[in-house]
Protein backbone atom coordinates (compact mmCIF):
# COMPACT_ATOMS: atom_id res chain seq x y z
CA UNK A 1 0.00 0.00 0.00
CA UNK A 2 1.44 3.40 -0.96
CA UNK A 3 1.80 5.37 2.26
CA UNK A 4 1.01 9.03 1.87
CA UNK A 5 4.38 10.76 2.36
CA UNK A 6 4.87 14.47 1.79
CA UNK A 7 3.60 14.38 -1.84
CA UNK A 8 2.50 17.73 -3.36
CA UNK A 9 -1.26 18.06 -3.13
CA UNK A 10 -3.68 19.48 -5.70
CA UNK A 11 -5.66 22.53 -4.52
CA UNK A 12 -9.05 21.37 -5.95
CA UNK A 13 -10.24 24.98 -5.96
CA UNK A 14 -13.39 24.32 -7.96
CA UNK A 15 -14.79 21.96 -5.34
CA UNK A 16 -17.07 23.46 -2.67
CA UNK A 17 -15.51 23.15 0.80
CA UNK A 18 -18.11 20.56 1.94
CA UNK A 19 -17.17 18.15 -0.86
CA UNK A 20 -13.39 18.37 -0.46
CA UNK A 21 -13.42 15.44 1.99
CA UNK A 22 -15.04 13.14 -0.58
CA UNK A 23 -12.24 13.26 -3.19
CA UNK A 24 -8.58 12.20 -3.18
CA UNK A 25 -6.39 15.26 -3.91
CA UNK A 26 -3.11 13.51 -4.83
CA UNK A 27 -1.21 14.44 -8.02
CA UNK A 28 -0.76 11.83 -10.79
CA UNK A 29 2.71 10.25 -10.71
CA UNK A 30 5.08 9.22 -13.44
CA UNK A 31 5.71 5.44 -13.37
CA UNK A 32 8.92 4.78 -15.35
CA UNK A 33 8.71 1.63 -17.47
CA UNK A 34 11.00 -1.27 -16.51
CA UNK A 35 13.75 -1.49 -19.09
CA UNK A 36 14.64 -4.63 -21.04
CA UNK A 37 13.11 -7.99 -21.88
CA UNK A 38 10.54 -7.92 -19.10
CA UNK A 39 9.04 -4.61 -20.35
CA UNK A 40 8.93 -5.97 -23.91
CA UNK A 41 7.15 -9.07 -22.73
CA UNK A 42 4.65 -6.92 -20.72
CA UNK A 43 4.18 -4.67 -23.74
CA UNK A 44 3.49 -7.80 -25.84
CA UNK A 45 0.81 -8.70 -23.31
CA UNK A 46 -0.61 -5.15 -23.28
CA UNK A 47 -0.60 -5.02 -27.06
CA UNK A 48 -2.38 -8.34 -27.53
CA UNK A 49 -5.07 -7.61 -24.95
CA UNK A 50 -6.37 -4.11 -25.75
CA UNK A 51 -9.58 -3.42 -23.85
CA UNK A 52 -11.53 -0.53 -25.37
CA UNK A 53 -13.56 1.76 -23.07
CA UNK A 54 -17.16 1.56 -24.21
CA UNK A 55 -17.64 5.39 -24.20
CA UNK A 56 -18.87 6.61 -27.60
CA UNK A 57 -17.92 10.30 -27.40
CA UNK A 58 -18.88 11.39 -30.91
CA UNK A 59 -20.04 10.15 -34.35
CA UNK A 60 -17.09 7.73 -34.46
CA UNK A 61 -18.65 5.35 -31.93
CA UNK A 62 -20.75 3.78 -34.72
CA UNK A 63 -17.55 2.64 -36.37
CA UNK A 64 -16.70 0.51 -33.37
CA UNK A 65 -19.85 -1.64 -33.68
CA UNK A 66 -18.93 -3.33 -37.00
CA UNK A 67 -15.64 -4.43 -35.44
CA UNK A 68 -17.64 -6.87 -33.27
CA UNK A 69 -19.28 -8.42 -36.31
CA UNK A 70 -17.85 -11.44 -38.13
CA UNK A 71 -16.79 -9.24 -41.09
CA UNK A 72 -14.13 -7.28 -39.19
CA UNK A 73 -13.91 -9.21 -35.84
CA UNK A 74 -11.57 -7.26 -33.53
CA UNK A 75 -11.55 -10.18 -31.08
CA UNK A 76 -8.93 -11.79 -33.33
CA UNK A 77 -6.49 -9.15 -32.14
CA UNK A 78 -7.36 -9.64 -28.45
CA UNK A 79 -9.41 -6.45 -28.49
CA UNK A 80 -12.71 -6.39 -26.62
CA UNK A 81 -15.00 -3.63 -25.29
CA UNK A 82 -15.08 -2.98 -21.47
CA UNK A 83 -17.85 -0.99 -19.74
CA UNK A 84 -15.72 0.85 -17.11
CA UNK A 85 -12.63 3.07 -17.58
CA UNK A 86 -11.00 1.29 -14.61
CA UNK A 87 -10.57 -1.93 -16.55
CA UNK A 88 -9.97 -0.50 -20.07
CA UNK A 89 -6.60 0.44 -21.53
CA UNK A 90 -7.64 2.02 -24.86
CA UNK A 91 -9.84 5.13 -25.17
CA UNK A 92 -11.12 5.77 -28.70
CA UNK A 93 -12.32 9.37 -29.13
CA UNK A 94 -14.65 9.00 -32.14
CA UNK A 95 -15.09 12.34 -34.04
CA UNK A 96 -15.90 15.76 -32.64
CA UNK A 97 -15.52 16.28 -28.86
CA UNK A 98 -17.83 18.99 -27.57
CA UNK A 99 -16.70 20.91 -24.49
CA UNK A 100 -19.36 19.20 -22.43
CA UNK A 101 -18.17 15.75 -23.57
CA UNK A 102 -14.53 16.80 -23.09
CA UNK A 103 -15.20 17.26 -19.38
CA UNK A 104 -16.45 13.63 -19.23
CA UNK A 105 -13.57 12.46 -21.49
CA UNK A 106 -11.02 13.99 -19.11
CA UNK A 107 -12.67 12.39 -16.05
CA UNK A 108 -12.85 8.98 -17.75
CA UNK A 109 -9.28 9.27 -19.06
CA UNK A 110 -7.97 10.18 -15.59
CA UNK A 111 -9.84 7.19 -14.08
CA UNK A 112 -8.13 4.76 -16.46
CA UNK A 113 -5.15 2.87 -15.00
CA UNK A 114 -1.50 2.37 -15.83
CA UNK A 115 -0.33 2.35 -19.44
CA UNK A 116 -3.38 3.85 -21.19
CA UNK A 117 -3.63 4.75 -24.86
CA UNK A 118 -5.84 7.19 -26.74
CA UNK A 119 -6.82 6.74 -30.39
CA UNK A 120 -8.16 9.87 -32.06
CA UNK A 121 -10.62 8.61 -34.71
CA UNK A 122 -11.64 11.01 -37.46
CA UNK A 123 -10.28 14.36 -38.58
CA UNK A 124 -12.31 16.30 -36.01
CA UNK A 125 -9.82 15.11 -33.34
CA UNK A 126 -6.88 16.14 -35.54
CA UNK A 127 -7.81 19.72 -36.30
CA UNK A 128 -11.45 20.19 -35.45
CA UNK A 129 -12.60 18.85 -38.87
CA UNK A 130 -15.72 20.50 -40.26
CA UNK A 131 -16.50 21.87 -36.83
CA UNK A 132 -13.20 23.73 -36.60
CA UNK A 133 -14.93 27.11 -36.09
CA UNK A 134 -17.77 25.84 -33.88
CA UNK A 135 -18.12 27.60 -30.48
CA UNK A 136 -18.52 24.40 -28.47
CA UNK A 137 -16.11 21.83 -29.90
CA UNK A 138 -12.33 21.50 -29.45
CA UNK A 139 -9.94 21.57 -32.34
CA UNK A 140 -6.82 19.65 -31.28
CA UNK A 141 -7.44 16.72 -28.97
CA UNK A 142 -3.86 16.31 -27.86
CA UNK A 143 -3.89 19.72 -26.19
CA UNK A 144 -6.20 18.25 -23.63
CA UNK A 145 -5.23 14.59 -23.35
CA UNK A 146 -2.15 12.80 -24.78
CA UNK A 147 -3.08 10.98 -28.00
CA UNK A 148 -1.13 8.00 -29.41
CA UNK A 149 -2.60 7.46 -32.87
CA UNK A 150 -4.74 9.70 -35.02
CA UNK A 151 -6.82 8.10 -37.83
CA UNK A 152 -7.75 10.76 -40.32
CA UNK A 153 -10.97 10.69 -42.39
CA UNK A 154 -14.43 12.05 -41.92
CA UNK A 155 -15.38 8.96 -40.35
CA UNK A 156 -12.75 6.45 -41.54
CA UNK A 157 -14.09 2.98 -42.30
CA UNK A 158 -13.67 0.10 -39.86
CA UNK A 159 -10.74 -1.22 -41.86
CA UNK A 160 -8.96 2.09 -41.20
CA UNK A 161 -9.80 1.70 -37.53
CA UNK A 162 -8.30 -1.79 -37.55
CA UNK A 163 -5.21 -0.41 -39.23
CA UNK A 164 -5.04 2.30 -36.58
CA UNK A 165 -5.27 -0.36 -33.85
CA UNK A 166 -2.54 -2.30 -35.61
CA UNK A 167 -0.35 0.83 -35.66
CA UNK A 168 -1.10 1.39 -31.98
CA UNK A 169 -0.10 -2.21 -31.23
CA UNK A 170 3.20 -1.59 -32.94
CA UNK A 171 3.75 1.60 -30.93
CA UNK A 172 3.08 -0.32 -27.72
CA UNK A 173 5.43 -3.11 -28.74
CA UNK A 174 8.11 -0.46 -29.46
CA UNK A 175 7.51 0.99 -25.98
CA UNK A 176 6.62 4.45 -27.31
CA UNK A 177 3.01 4.55 -26.03
CA UNK A 178 3.78 6.36 -22.73
CA UNK A 179 0.87 8.83 -22.91
CA UNK A 180 0.07 8.28 -19.18
CA UNK A 181 3.52 9.39 -18.06
CA UNK A 182 3.42 12.32 -20.47
CA UNK A 183 0.09 13.42 -18.94
CA UNK A 184 1.59 13.10 -15.47
CA UNK A 185 4.71 15.10 -16.36
CA UNK A 186 3.00 18.11 -17.85
CA UNK A 187 -0.18 17.71 -15.90
CA UNK A 188 -0.43 21.42 -15.12
CA UNK A 189 -0.22 22.37 -18.80
CA UNK A 190 -2.91 19.93 -19.72
CA UNK A 191 -5.06 20.98 -16.76
CA UNK A 192 -4.71 24.65 -17.61
CA UNK A 193 -5.84 24.01 -21.20
CA UNK A 194 -8.75 21.96 -19.98
CA UNK A 195 -9.88 24.52 -17.41
CA UNK A 196 -9.55 27.30 -19.92
CA UNK A 197 -12.24 25.79 -22.08
CA UNK A 198 -14.33 23.89 -19.44
CA UNK A 199 -16.01 26.49 -17.24
CA UNK A 200 -18.29 24.41 -14.95
CA UNK A 201 -15.48 22.30 -13.48
CA UNK A 202 -17.11 21.02 -10.23
CA UNK A 203 -14.77 18.06 -10.03
CA UNK A 204 -11.39 17.58 -8.29
CA UNK A 205 -8.33 18.56 -10.33
CA UNK A 206 -7.32 14.96 -10.90
CA UNK A 207 -10.13 12.36 -10.91
CA UNK A 208 -8.61 9.21 -9.31
Amino acid at each position, binding site marked *: *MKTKTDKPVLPNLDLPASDKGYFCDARP*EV*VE*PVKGIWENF*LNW*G*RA*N*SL*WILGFGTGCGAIELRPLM*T*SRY*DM*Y*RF*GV*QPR*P*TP*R*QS*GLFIIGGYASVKTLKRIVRSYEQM*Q*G*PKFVLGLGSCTVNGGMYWDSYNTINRLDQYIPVDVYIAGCMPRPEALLAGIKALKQRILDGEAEG*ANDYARNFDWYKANQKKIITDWNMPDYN*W
Partner: protein
Amino acid sequence: MTILGQIGAAAFSVFIFINYGFLLAGSMARIRARVQGRIGQPVYQPYIDILKNNARRTAVHHGVMFFLGPVFRLAGGLGTFLFIPAILNSPLFANFSFSGDILLVMYFIFFGQLGMALGAGQSGHPYSPIGVSRGLAQMSAFEMPFILSVLALAIKHNSLSITAIVQAQQGGIANWSMITNPLAVIAAIIAFLGMSMHNPFSVVIAPQEIPIGPPTEYHSGLLGMLQTNRSIFNAAKLVLYVNLFFGGASATEGVLYALSASVLHAVPVWLGVTLGVVTMVIKTFLLYFITVFVGVSFPRFRTDQSIRFFLFVPTLIGLAGLFLARL
Protein backbone atom coordinates in the same frame (compact mmCIF):
# COMPACT_ATOMS: atom_id res chain seq x y z
CA MET B 1 1.21 -39.60 2.10
CA THR B 2 3.08 -37.02 4.12
CA ILE B 3 1.59 -33.57 4.67
CA LEU B 4 4.10 -32.02 2.26
CA GLY B 5 3.33 -34.75 -0.30
CA GLN B 6 -0.36 -33.95 -0.07
CA ILE B 7 0.28 -30.24 -0.47
CA GLY B 8 2.52 -30.90 -3.47
CA ALA B 9 -0.11 -33.17 -5.07
CA ALA B 10 -2.79 -30.58 -4.41
CA ALA B 11 -0.65 -27.86 -5.98
CA PHE B 12 -0.07 -30.06 -9.00
CA SER B 13 -3.76 -30.87 -9.43
CA VAL B 14 -4.63 -27.16 -9.03
CA PHE B 15 -2.01 -26.30 -11.68
CA ILE B 16 -3.49 -28.81 -14.08
CA PHE B 17 -7.08 -27.75 -13.61
CA ILE B 18 -6.36 -24.00 -13.54
CA ASN B 19 -4.79 -24.21 -16.97
CA TYR B 20 -7.62 -26.45 -18.11
CA GLY B 21 -9.99 -23.72 -16.88
CA PHE B 22 -8.24 -21.03 -18.89
CA LEU B 23 -8.12 -23.15 -22.01
CA LEU B 24 -11.74 -24.17 -21.55
CA ALA B 25 -12.79 -20.48 -21.33
CA GLY B 26 -10.62 -19.56 -24.32
CA SER B 27 -11.85 -22.46 -26.46
CA MET B 28 -15.51 -21.82 -25.53
CA ALA B 29 -15.10 -18.17 -26.60
CA ARG B 30 -13.56 -19.35 -29.84
CA ILE B 31 -16.39 -21.84 -30.43
CA ARG B 32 -18.93 -19.09 -29.70
CA ALA B 33 -17.13 -16.89 -32.24
CA ARG B 34 -17.14 -19.73 -34.78
CA VAL B 35 -20.90 -20.08 -34.25
CA GLN B 36 -21.21 -16.36 -35.04
CA GLY B 37 -19.04 -16.81 -38.08
CA ARG B 38 -16.15 -14.90 -36.55
CA ILE B 39 -12.59 -16.18 -36.25
CA GLY B 40 -12.72 -15.33 -32.54
CA GLN B 41 -10.01 -14.66 -30.03
CA PRO B 42 -7.05 -17.05 -29.75
CA VAL B 43 -7.59 -19.94 -27.30
CA TYR B 44 -4.81 -18.63 -25.02
CA GLN B 45 -6.38 -15.12 -24.83
CA PRO B 46 -7.32 -15.46 -21.11
CA TYR B 47 -3.62 -15.83 -20.30
CA ILE B 48 -2.84 -12.61 -22.09
CA ASP B 49 -5.69 -10.75 -20.44
CA ILE B 50 -4.49 -11.82 -16.98
CA LEU B 51 -0.91 -10.91 -17.88
CA LYS B 52 -2.08 -7.47 -19.15
CA ASN B 53 -4.13 -6.85 -16.00
CA ASN B 54 -1.23 -7.77 -13.76
CA ALA B 55 1.03 -5.63 -15.88
CA ARG B 56 -0.92 -2.49 -15.05
CA ARG B 57 1.37 0.13 -13.46
CA THR B 58 -1.21 1.88 -11.22
CA ALA B 59 -4.17 0.72 -9.16
CA VAL B 60 -6.72 2.25 -6.76
CA HIS B 61 -8.33 0.67 -3.67
CA HIS B 62 -11.24 1.78 -1.46
CA GLY B 63 -10.20 0.12 1.76
CA VAL B 64 -8.99 -3.12 3.33
CA MET B 65 -12.12 -5.14 2.62
CA PHE B 66 -12.09 -3.99 -1.05
CA PHE B 67 -8.47 -5.10 -1.33
CA LEU B 68 -9.23 -8.51 0.29
CA GLY B 69 -12.30 -9.15 -1.85
CA PRO B 70 -10.44 -10.86 -4.74
CA VAL B 71 -8.30 -12.79 -2.21
CA PHE B 72 -11.46 -14.18 -0.60
CA ARG B 73 -12.84 -14.93 -4.05
CA LEU B 74 -9.78 -16.84 -5.23
CA ALA B 75 -9.47 -18.61 -1.88
CA GLY B 76 -13.12 -19.68 -2.30
CA GLY B 77 -12.45 -20.99 -5.81
CA LEU B 78 -9.27 -22.84 -4.85
CA GLY B 79 -10.79 -24.18 -1.63
CA THR B 80 -13.88 -25.51 -3.41
CA PHE B 81 -11.67 -27.31 -5.88
CA LEU B 82 -9.34 -28.66 -3.20
CA PHE B 83 -12.18 -30.23 -1.23
CA ILE B 84 -13.37 -32.22 -4.25
CA PRO B 85 -11.57 -35.48 -5.19
CA ALA B 86 -10.85 -34.82 -8.90
CA ILE B 87 -9.78 -38.29 -9.94
CA LEU B 88 -10.95 -41.42 -8.09
CA ASN B 89 -8.39 -43.83 -6.64
CA SER B 90 -5.44 -41.53 -7.43
CA PRO B 91 -3.75 -40.01 -4.40
CA LEU B 92 -2.25 -37.37 -6.69
CA PHE B 93 -5.64 -35.89 -7.55
CA ALA B 94 -7.48 -36.69 -4.29
CA ASN B 95 -6.75 -33.12 -3.10
CA PHE B 96 -7.88 -32.51 0.51
CA SER B 97 -11.20 -34.26 0.08
CA PHE B 98 -10.61 -36.15 3.34
CA SER B 99 -11.45 -33.03 5.36
CA GLY B 100 -15.17 -32.88 4.56
CA ASP B 101 -18.00 -34.29 2.47
CA ILE B 102 -20.42 -32.76 -0.06
CA LEU B 103 -21.91 -30.40 2.59
CA LEU B 104 -18.49 -28.81 3.05
CA VAL B 105 -18.17 -28.20 -0.67
CA MET B 106 -21.70 -26.82 -1.00
CA TYR B 107 -21.10 -24.37 1.84
CA PHE B 108 -17.57 -23.44 0.74
CA ILE B 109 -19.08 -21.98 -2.42
CA PHE B 110 -20.62 -19.31 -0.14
CA PHE B 111 -17.10 -18.42 1.13
CA GLY B 112 -16.10 -17.06 -2.26
CA GLN B 113 -19.43 -15.30 -2.81
CA LEU B 114 -19.28 -13.68 0.64
CA GLY B 115 -15.76 -12.38 0.13
CA MET B 116 -16.65 -10.97 -3.27
CA ALA B 117 -19.80 -9.38 -1.90
CA LEU B 118 -17.91 -7.72 0.97
CA GLY B 119 -15.19 -6.39 -1.32
CA ALA B 120 -17.76 -5.07 -3.80
CA GLY B 121 -19.69 -3.55 -0.89
CA GLN B 122 -16.79 -1.42 0.21
CA SER B 123 -16.14 -0.09 -3.28
CA GLY B 124 -18.74 2.58 -2.53
CA HIS B 125 -20.18 2.18 -6.03
CA PRO B 126 -23.99 1.68 -5.95
CA TYR B 127 -23.84 -0.79 -8.86
CA SER B 128 -21.86 -3.32 -6.81
CA PRO B 129 -24.40 -3.82 -4.01
CA ILE B 130 -27.20 -3.90 -6.60
CA GLY B 131 -25.30 -6.66 -8.38
CA VAL B 132 -24.65 -8.44 -5.09
CA SER B 133 -28.29 -8.26 -4.03
CA ARG B 134 -29.35 -9.74 -7.36
CA GLY B 135 -26.61 -12.38 -7.17
CA LEU B 136 -27.52 -13.45 -3.62
CA ALA B 137 -31.21 -13.51 -4.36
CA GLN B 138 -30.68 -15.68 -7.41
CA MET B 139 -28.13 -17.88 -5.64
CA SER B 140 -30.50 -18.59 -2.75
CA ALA B 141 -33.14 -19.52 -5.32
CA PHE B 142 -31.10 -21.93 -7.41
CA GLU B 143 -29.72 -23.51 -4.21
CA MET B 144 -33.07 -25.28 -3.77
CA PRO B 145 -32.95 -27.60 -6.82
CA PHE B 146 -29.22 -28.23 -6.23
CA ILE B 147 -29.85 -29.19 -2.58
CA LEU B 148 -32.69 -31.50 -3.52
CA SER B 149 -30.60 -33.29 -6.13
CA VAL B 150 -27.64 -33.69 -3.77
CA LEU B 151 -29.96 -35.04 -1.06
CA ALA B 152 -31.44 -37.46 -3.56
CA LEU B 153 -27.95 -38.78 -4.24
CA ALA B 154 -27.10 -38.92 -0.54
CA ILE B 155 -30.26 -40.94 0.11
CA LYS B 156 -29.67 -43.20 -2.91
CA HIS B 157 -26.04 -44.02 -2.03
CA ASN B 158 -26.64 -43.62 1.72
CA SER B 159 -23.53 -41.46 2.01
CA LEU B 160 -22.57 -37.83 1.81
CA SER B 161 -18.90 -38.31 0.89
CA ILE B 162 -18.15 -37.54 -2.76
CA THR B 163 -15.63 -40.35 -3.12
CA ALA B 164 -18.29 -42.85 -2.05
CA ILE B 165 -20.78 -41.42 -4.55
CA VAL B 166 -18.27 -41.58 -7.37
CA GLN B 167 -17.29 -45.08 -6.32
CA ALA B 168 -20.92 -46.14 -6.52
CA GLN B 169 -21.19 -44.83 -10.09
CA GLN B 170 -18.24 -46.80 -11.48
CA GLY B 171 -18.70 -49.79 -13.70
CA GLY B 172 -20.33 -48.59 -16.83
CA ILE B 173 -22.83 -45.95 -17.77
CA ALA B 174 -25.78 -47.90 -16.30
CA ASN B 175 -25.06 -46.89 -12.74
CA TRP B 176 -24.31 -43.20 -13.42
CA SER B 177 -26.57 -40.95 -11.46
CA MET B 178 -27.80 -39.65 -14.80
CA ILE B 179 -29.43 -43.02 -15.34
CA THR B 180 -30.29 -44.07 -11.84
CA ASN B 181 -31.94 -40.76 -10.91
CA PRO B 182 -32.54 -38.61 -14.07
CA LEU B 183 -34.90 -36.18 -12.31
CA ALA B 184 -32.27 -35.21 -9.77
CA VAL B 185 -29.75 -34.66 -12.56
CA ILE B 186 -32.14 -32.43 -14.52
CA ALA B 187 -32.72 -30.30 -11.43
CA ALA B 188 -28.97 -30.15 -10.82
CA ILE B 189 -28.26 -29.05 -14.39
CA ILE B 190 -30.84 -26.26 -14.17
CA ALA B 191 -29.18 -25.18 -10.93
CA PHE B 192 -25.83 -25.31 -12.76
CA LEU B 193 -27.20 -22.84 -15.31
CA GLY B 194 -28.01 -20.51 -12.45
CA MET B 195 -24.52 -20.93 -11.01
CA SER B 196 -22.73 -20.24 -14.28
CA MET B 197 -24.36 -16.78 -14.60
CA HIS B 198 -24.87 -17.37 -18.32
CA ASN B 199 -27.58 -15.65 -20.16
CA PRO B 200 -30.97 -16.59 -18.83
CA PHE B 201 -29.62 -15.82 -15.33
CA SER B 202 -26.97 -13.22 -16.16
CA VAL B 203 -28.89 -10.34 -14.54
CA VAL B 204 -26.16 -10.22 -11.88
CA ILE B 205 -23.43 -8.97 -14.26
CA ALA B 206 -25.76 -7.37 -16.82
CA PRO B 207 -23.15 -5.33 -18.76
CA GLN B 208 -25.53 -2.61 -20.05
CA GLU B 209 -27.47 -1.99 -16.79
CA ILE B 210 -24.81 -2.24 -14.10
CA PRO B 211 -21.36 -2.57 -15.80
CA ILE B 212 -20.42 -6.16 -14.87
CA GLY B 213 -22.23 -5.88 -11.53
CA PRO B 214 -20.22 -6.53 -8.35
CA PRO B 215 -16.64 -6.30 -9.73
CA THR B 216 -17.36 -2.92 -11.36
CA GLU B 217 -14.66 -1.09 -9.38
CA TYR B 218 -12.07 -3.86 -9.70
CA HIS B 219 -9.15 -3.42 -12.07
CA SER B 220 -5.48 -4.30 -12.74
CA GLY B 221 -4.05 -6.96 -10.39
CA LEU B 222 -7.31 -7.33 -8.44
CA LEU B 223 -9.26 -8.03 -11.61
CA GLY B 224 -6.52 -10.45 -12.69
CA MET B 225 -7.07 -12.45 -9.51
CA LEU B 226 -10.82 -12.46 -10.10
CA GLN B 227 -10.31 -13.85 -13.60
CA THR B 228 -8.00 -16.59 -12.32
CA ASN B 229 -10.68 -17.48 -9.85
CA ARG B 230 -13.35 -17.60 -12.57
CA SER B 231 -11.42 -20.35 -14.31
CA ILE B 232 -10.57 -22.49 -11.26
CA PHE B 233 -14.08 -22.00 -9.81
CA ASN B 234 -15.63 -23.11 -13.09
CA ALA B 235 -13.33 -26.10 -13.20
CA ALA B 236 -14.22 -27.00 -9.63
CA LYS B 237 -17.97 -26.82 -10.32
CA LEU B 238 -17.57 -28.89 -13.46
CA VAL B 239 -15.52 -31.54 -11.65
CA LEU B 240 -18.08 -31.62 -8.84
CA TYR B 241 -20.98 -32.10 -11.28
CA VAL B 242 -19.18 -34.78 -13.20
CA ASN B 243 -18.27 -36.61 -10.00
CA LEU B 244 -21.81 -36.46 -8.66
CA PHE B 245 -23.87 -37.06 -11.75
CA PHE B 246 -21.79 -38.34 -14.61
CA GLY B 247 -19.70 -41.09 -13.10
CA GLY B 248 -16.58 -38.98 -12.35
CA ALA B 249 -13.19 -40.15 -13.61
CA SER B 250 -11.21 -42.99 -12.11
CA ALA B 251 -7.55 -43.85 -12.39
CA THR B 252 -8.33 -47.59 -12.30
CA GLU B 253 -11.56 -47.98 -14.32
CA GLY B 254 -13.49 -46.42 -17.12
CA VAL B 255 -13.79 -46.86 -20.90
CA LEU B 256 -10.33 -45.54 -21.84
CA TYR B 257 -8.72 -47.59 -19.07
CA ALA B 258 -10.41 -50.75 -20.34
CA LEU B 259 -9.15 -50.01 -23.88
CA SER B 260 -5.55 -49.46 -22.76
CA ALA B 261 -5.75 -52.49 -20.41
CA SER B 262 -6.76 -54.68 -23.32
CA VAL B 263 -3.75 -53.33 -25.22
CA LEU B 264 -1.06 -53.22 -22.43
CA HIS B 265 -2.25 -55.92 -19.95
CA ALA B 266 -0.69 -54.01 -17.00
CA VAL B 267 -1.53 -50.32 -17.23
CA PRO B 268 1.17 -48.23 -15.48
CA VAL B 269 -0.09 -45.87 -12.77
CA TRP B 270 0.88 -42.65 -14.54
CA LEU B 271 -1.02 -43.76 -17.65
CA GLY B 272 -4.11 -44.58 -15.56
CA VAL B 273 -4.02 -41.13 -14.00
CA THR B 274 -3.59 -39.33 -17.30
CA LEU B 275 -6.47 -41.36 -18.77
CA GLY B 276 -8.54 -40.32 -15.72
CA VAL B 277 -7.67 -36.66 -16.36
CA VAL B 278 -8.54 -37.05 -20.04
CA THR B 279 -11.96 -38.60 -19.25
CA MET B 280 -12.59 -35.78 -16.77
CA VAL B 281 -11.60 -33.16 -19.37
CA ILE B 282 -13.88 -34.69 -22.00
CA LYS B 283 -16.86 -35.00 -19.68
CA THR B 284 -16.48 -31.48 -18.27
CA PHE B 285 -16.00 -30.04 -21.77
CA LEU B 286 -19.32 -31.58 -22.91
CA LEU B 287 -21.09 -30.50 -19.70
CA TYR B 288 -19.89 -26.92 -20.15
CA PHE B 289 -21.37 -27.00 -23.65
CA ILE B 290 -24.88 -27.18 -22.14
CA THR B 291 -24.50 -23.84 -20.35
CA VAL B 292 -23.01 -22.20 -23.46
CA PHE B 293 -25.81 -23.42 -25.72
CA VAL B 294 -28.52 -22.34 -23.28
CA GLY B 295 -26.67 -19.07 -22.64
CA VAL B 296 -26.48 -18.16 -26.31
CA SER B 297 -30.15 -18.79 -27.06
CA PHE B 298 -32.10 -17.23 -24.20
CA PRO B 299 -32.89 -13.60 -23.20
CA ARG B 300 -32.18 -12.47 -19.63
CA PHE B 301 -34.64 -13.09 -16.76
CA ARG B 302 -35.41 -10.32 -14.23
CA THR B 303 -34.33 -11.33 -10.70
CA ASP B 304 -37.84 -11.97 -9.37
CA GLN B 305 -38.69 -13.98 -12.49
CA SER B 306 -35.60 -16.15 -12.00
CA ILE B 307 -36.46 -16.61 -8.29
CA ARG B 308 -39.98 -17.65 -9.14
CA PHE B 309 -38.64 -19.89 -11.95
CA PHE B 310 -36.18 -21.73 -9.69
CA LEU B 311 -38.62 -22.17 -6.85
CA PHE B 312 -41.33 -23.65 -9.05
CA VAL B 313 -40.52 -26.20 -11.75
CA PRO B 314 -36.91 -27.18 -10.87
CA THR B 315 -37.85 -27.52 -7.18
CA LEU B 316 -40.73 -29.81 -8.08
CA ILE B 317 -38.40 -31.86 -10.28
CA GLY B 318 -35.93 -31.99 -7.39
CA LEU B 319 -38.65 -33.17 -5.00
CA ALA B 320 -39.71 -35.82 -7.47
CA GLY B 321 -36.06 -36.87 -7.70
CA LEU B 322 -35.92 -37.08 -3.94
CA PHE B 323 -38.92 -39.39 -3.78
CA LEU B 324 -37.52 -41.37 -6.62
CA ALA B 325 -34.35 -41.85 -4.58
CA ARG B 326 -36.30 -43.05 -1.57
CA LEU B 327 -38.14 -45.77 -3.52
